[in-house]
């Protein structure tokens, strides 16, 4: 679907800050409040805006037991449906946070979240690798998140400028 310049602008702004007040957003894109609301509603209905979520730095939460693994999965594509069917079989698991079809050395990149190493290991060995079309898996555990979805977790963003300058 092709978006107009204003629609595109609204999507870009919301992608950076979903909580911005709609009247401020309207001013930023030089539209009236009702028109802006209408556009957002349309984008939501069309599932271009799929969902509003938050970026959480779980590393800061004490006693939070959770870890993320990226799994490179090689699969045999099926006649007629290619990779879509196997991708669907994988992404339906609630542990799976994202699934991407990749170019290069493997086919699917699967991100999963579990409470413990055991939980992830269990999922990979019992669920993922036993699927018929899965040829092999390589699991990488994420040790530390520095930057996620464009956001640097530990950044010093103090304004270092002098208060008034010519």
């Amino acid at each position, binding site marked *: 679907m092709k978006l107009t310049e204003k629609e595109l*602008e609204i999507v*870009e*702004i919301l992608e950076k*800050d979903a909580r*911005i*007040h709609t009247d*401020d957003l309207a*001013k*930023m*894109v*030089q539209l009236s409040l009702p028109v802006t609301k209408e556009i957002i509603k349309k984008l939501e209905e069309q599932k271009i805006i799929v969902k509003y979520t938050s970026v959480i730095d779980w590393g800061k939460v004490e006693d939070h037991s959770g870890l993320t693994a990226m799994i490179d999965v090689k699969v045999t594509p099926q006649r007629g449906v290619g990779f879509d069917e196997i991708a669907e079989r994988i992404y339906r698991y609630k542990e799976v946070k994202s699934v991407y079809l990749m170019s290069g050395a493997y086919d699917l990149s699967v991100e999963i979240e579990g409470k413990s190493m055991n939980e992830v290991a269990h999922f990979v060995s019992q669920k993922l690798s036993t699927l018929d079309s899965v040829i092999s898996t390589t699991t990488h555990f994420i040790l530390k998140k520095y930057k996620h979805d464009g956001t640097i977790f530990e950044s010093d963003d103090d*304004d270092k*400028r*002098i*208060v*008034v*300058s*010519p």
Partner: protein
Amino acid sequence: MKKNYLSKKAQALKPSGIRRFFDLAAGMKGVVSLGVGEPDFVTPWTVREAAILSIEQGYTSYSANAGLLELRKEIASYMQKQFNVAYSPSTEIIVTVGASQAIDIAMRTILDPGDEVIIIEPCFVSYSPMVEMADGVPVHVQALKENDFKILPSQLEEVITEKTKAIMLCSPNNPTGSMLNKKELEDIAEIADKYDLLVIADEIYAELVYDEEYTSLALINGMRERTILISGFSKGFAMTGWRLGFVCAPEEITQAMLKIHQYAIMCAPTMAQFAAIEALKNGRSDVEEMVKSYRRRRNYIVQSFNDMGLTCHLPGGAFYAFPSIESTGLSSEEFAERLLLEESVAVVPGNVFGASGEGHIRCSYATSMEQLQEAVKRMKQFIEKIS
């Protein structure tokens, strides 16, 4: 000291009106500042990284007086590609310590004692002092709010005398954000040609334009030979602290400027020059992102000012809004001072940029949306309180 060692020139210079507000604001906590004349973005990482690499590799010596040839070549192709103006990297470009130093050497190169330079106010606070320091005489003419702070050719003609040597032109303008379009530049070019004048074109904000396409003065028919074009990396590339600008002019003028530049400063800092090469080679997408962001904030702040009763024209470039505060009955200075002391919002009173800036305040929107929203909230409160 028995003798007064200070030159009459130094004594006659007035301190900038901005200084007082800086001192006032610097001692306060929790100030939301719309008073900053520089980007809130940090220099793009790719540029910082290139400078670090140049230091690691030991490029710590002088460069050629006019700047690294590689940088001048990059500047030439950038000016060609971005603004369609052609300058020779070997003879018509000098890399300077900020655009400010470029203005300084331009003035010192063209002025004899008593020569007049037309300064269009409101404008950057350094122009007149720089003319005076070069023994010239600044002649002020006022761009008016009813003309969206664009100077009319007839106003220029009124102040031209036999001693007029040049017009100082800044578009997009600090502090008003006004930008002259092609037609308006052509009108100025006509005057320059008719009276045989040079124009010093401060185009430092040329990257930051939001509605119309930017036209460089040097692109106007016949103006290349009359234009000393000044620009730099501070505003467009978010590189204020690097102090790196450049000046492009016909060979004869450039070579004369180079003599002064060479004796006064030798060359611009080499590491900053390496950073600038990277900025021109790989900084384009960063600039575009910043422009996008400024445009949105400009739209937001200008609409917000108009909504709260502070009439504000939509500035075509730079990152300043220049709303009128006349409806409040306060002078610019009173408004700015009370807003700072009572609501902790720093703005710059318009009168420090020249007589026609009175009744206005300069608000920089080079600050985060969150800060702008907070500033708008506090200013609304302030206006409700005083009205």
